């Protein structure tokens, strides 16, 4: 009996340490990243430049969705990397989040346009439906299904750590 109790003193800490070791090293967890798959919500909004109506059927295939605004400082930091991505032929759709139309167009004219098209979400209704908490946020979408949702600035490191594994897994952008 005593032997069992003594063994317990050793086994319990080992069990706890190994549990937390496995918990911390969980590969699925990355701060800011969300890998739950769900369908892109239905929306009907206007395009930023032409102000023509735009809905789900206008954006097909595999693409990134980037939520940005001219008032968002981190979006300015992120912008250079998005331009690089678009030069590598990765299609990016923009969601202009709670922004004045003129400010947004000025911003794009000043810093360049990496976007295939920009959805003007003035009230943030589509963004709320997609679980956006602020700007910038980036989604990887394939055939109407969201595969990755990243909250925060996308840069080379985040692209390597968060997006590339999923892109390789599903063999996207080929």
């Amino acid at each position, binding site marked *: 009996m005593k032997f069992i109790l003594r063994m317990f003193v050793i086994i319990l800490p080992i069990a706890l340490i190994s549990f937390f070791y496995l918990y911390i090293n969980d590969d699925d967890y990355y701060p800011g990243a969300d890998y739950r798959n769900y369908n892109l919500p239905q929306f009907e909004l206007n395009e930023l430049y032409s102000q023509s109506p735009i809905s789900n059927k206008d954006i097909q295939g595999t693409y990134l969705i980037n939520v940005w605004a001219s008032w968002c400082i981190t979006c300015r930091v992120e912008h250079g990397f998005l331009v690089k991505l678009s030069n590598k032929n990765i299609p990016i759709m923009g969601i202009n989040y*709670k922004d004045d139309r003129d400010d947004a167009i000025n911003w794009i004219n000043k810093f360049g346009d990496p976007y295939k098209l920009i959805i003007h979400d003035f009230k*943030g209704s589509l963004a709320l439906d997609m679980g956006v908490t*602020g700007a910038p946020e980036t989604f990887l979408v394939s055939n109407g299904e969201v595969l990755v949702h990243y909250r925060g600035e996308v840069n080379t490191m985040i692209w390597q750590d968060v997006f590339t594994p999923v892109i390789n897994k599903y063999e996207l952008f080929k």
Partner: protein
Amino acid sequence: MIKKLCLVILLSCNFLFADSLYEFTNLENEKRFYNLIKEIRCPKCTSGSLASSNAPVSEDIKLKIVELIKEGKSDSEIKKYIVNRFGNEVLYDPGFDKGTYFLWIAPISILLLALTTFFFRRKI
């Protein structure tokens, strides 16, 4: 004359601004709303409920909750709507599932273990 006019304007200001921010059809729904925003965390904040936050996204969610209550959605449906978009972390009272079972079971099992060990030792 002007003094009186100023007084009238001043006094009527109270009524001008006495309109409530969120409108409900009945008291029951209003109570539900104020309970819900205490139970849901603001996704932009480290730890603060929707009720305590005026971040833009919290304001949006609160307006959405008002809208969903108007549509006749139940509390659990509203929570599900928000969890689907912002993840399990937005609930202050997480349910019992495979991600949280350890948190619920661990304290009780450790206590039971400690008690049994304690009583065992005395008998030896």
